[in-house]
């Protein structure tokens, strides 16, 4: 019954209630979006990083190499010689090595040439069809299949570069032979094929330039990468083929430590550690996320003040209500509880609305991030621990805001109140 009074009182003065709830909703929704974003972002980054100790690639920015090779969200820094890379791939301390050749896309989805090691490495399963066996056969990620409706048997042409509006490689069509089971990893957004397909795709371009000085161009295919300078191969005519990067899992901790130093010293390549680079990236994000979190807690603090002011202001007109409750037999503690409960109701409503609006916000954020970065967020995930903590924090704000008005109600002098009525 006390809760019924508290509930009715909450809605009896809707204007006061409204302001407090809006502020609470704003702060809770911002915080919940941030919690979800940070968690899902780190999860996506970390899950794709599993099992990769080092990435071998062209010299340049190590973060760029990691972003392009492991997450496929940046252009690669350049290409490396397959033969040179194989020297390191075949060392005994390497447990598994996944070569990658990329640089083309289909409707913005990256086409990655690799071996079946890729699927083993990331524990990917085929949902329908088979893994690529012959050249120009591809396996597509589950999101691609869902988003652009690629089916087994469909064919398409790749586009050069990493944006949709590139030069179309119309000599060969890729053919879909398999669709992957959703894994929550980068592979959901990838088109996988064998490395030879990527090479062949670009061989044809070289056939077009047959009169070029180097007549061995057919044996010297390479994968185009953003920023790569084309005269590179003329200056340094290197026998063998080129790939973009190699994902390495090592048996030996010593190698994890020393290779990043040894490889750049002795070769034209670098070895970057995903864990290190991603931590660097998170640290950068962290600053922004902390700033936003502080802002949201600031709003929550203001909503606490708003609840306090609303409750405190109505105390004067409500003291007869309290006196009335006391003369009908209510205890002092019941009055204290009534005031606290009103604040708790406000906070609970604000929290629920905040969580709902946070989800809606994340849903729209996810749509735009999917368009821009091919990265989707799940608005329906509930982080019981973090959001539970947020609920506790919201309630704490409500209780602290209500404690002084509640004590005033508790210690009300009924006789005096009634005598002065």
């Amino acid at each position, binding site marked *: 019954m006390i809760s019924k009074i508290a509930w009715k009182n909450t809605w009896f003065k809707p204007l006061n209630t409204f302001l407090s709830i809006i502020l609470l909703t704003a702060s809770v929704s911002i915080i919940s979006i941030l919690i979800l974003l940070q968690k899902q972002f780190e999860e996506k980054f970390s899950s794709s990083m599993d099992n990769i100790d080092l990435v071998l690639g062209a010299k340049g920015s190590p973060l760029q190499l990691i972003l392009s090779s492991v997450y496929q969200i940046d252009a690669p820094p350049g290409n490396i010689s397959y033969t040179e890379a194989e020297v390191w791939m075949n060392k005994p301390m390497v447990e598994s090595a996944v070569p990658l050749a990329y640089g083309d896309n289909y409707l913005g989805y990256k086409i990655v040439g690799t071996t079946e090691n890729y699927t083993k490495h990331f524990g990917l399963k085929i949902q329908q069809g088979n893994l690529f066996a012959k050249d120009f056969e591809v396996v597509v990620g589950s999101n691609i299949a869902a988003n652009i409706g690629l089916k087994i048997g469909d064919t398409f042409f790749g586009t050069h570069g990493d944006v949709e509006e590139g030069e179309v490689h119309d000599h060969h069509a890729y053919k879909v032979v398999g669709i992957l089971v959703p894994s929550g990893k980068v592979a959901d957004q990838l088109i996988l094929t064998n490395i030879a397909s990527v090479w062949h795709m670009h061989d044809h371009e070289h056939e077009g330039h047959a009169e070029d000085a180097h007549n061995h161009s057919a044996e010297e295919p390479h994968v185009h990468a953003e920023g790569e300078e084309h005269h590179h191969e003329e200056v340094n005519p290197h026998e063998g083929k080129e790939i973009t990067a190699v994902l390495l899992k090592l048996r030996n901790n010593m190698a994890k430590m020393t290779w990043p130093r040894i490889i750049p010293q002795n070769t034209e390549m670098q070895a970057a550690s995903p864990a290190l680079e991603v931590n660097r990236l998170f640290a950068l994000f962290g600053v922004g996320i902390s700033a936003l979190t502080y802002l949201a807690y600031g709003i929550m603090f203001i909503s606490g003040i708003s609840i306090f002011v609303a409750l405190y202001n109505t105390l004067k007109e409500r003291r007869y209500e309290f006196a009335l409750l006391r003369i009908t*037999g209510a205890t002092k503690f019941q009055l204290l509880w009534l005031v606290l409960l009103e604040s708790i109701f406000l906070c609970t409503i604000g929290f629920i609305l905040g969580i709902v609006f946070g989800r809606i916000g994340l849903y729209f954020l996810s749509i735009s991030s999917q368009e821009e970065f091919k990265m989707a967020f799940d608005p329906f995930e509930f982080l019981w621990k973090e959001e539970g903590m947020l609920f506790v924090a919201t309630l704490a704000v409500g209780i602290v805001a209500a404690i002084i008005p509640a004590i005033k109600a508790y210690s009300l002098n009924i006789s005096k109140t009634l005598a002065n009525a």
Partner: protein
Amino acid sequence: MIKTQNVTFSYSATQKFHFPDVDCPNGQTLLVTGNSGTGKTTLLHLLGGLLQPTAGNITINNQDILQLNAAKLDAFRGQSIGMILQKSFFIEALSVLDNVVLASWIAKKSKAKEKALSILDNLGLKDHVHKLPSQLSIGQQQRVNIARALINNPSVILADEPTSSLDDENALIVARLLSDLAKEYQSSLIIVTHDQRLKSLFNHQITLS
């Protein structure tokens, strides 16, 4: 029934009240009159356990209410005392019916909805039970107060100036209604008032000075 002996009270060293003994058996009405400042409301608050006397005894239904601790006194007040105040106070956000039912829930932890409806019906408020108290006239509000005071079958009904804000006709109606209800519910009714219109109605009177 309610009885007092040698009750004194002081707000400060200079202002001391020595109240005449009150003795009001069940079903009877006692009118307490006196000019402003003679301690009428103070006496009523003492009888209702809202104030503690400096000396004396107050016994309601053979229970010395001064022996009760704060929590027991609150419970006892809810169950055995019905108070009707000069002004009508309500939980504004609750309906007329819920305001009456609330008193039964606070005192007995059970919602006497049927009983509340029948009392309100008796008092001619049948059509107003689902309205908010602020939508009623002052006379109607006073009757809701009476219904709330009666819902727990109190041994004692304490009424503080119940008629002062009413016109002549309504004042007499309310006063008669109260004393009839006290007989019907076998409660002791104590009316504290300076309203001269009531003096002719009741035989048992105490005048404070």
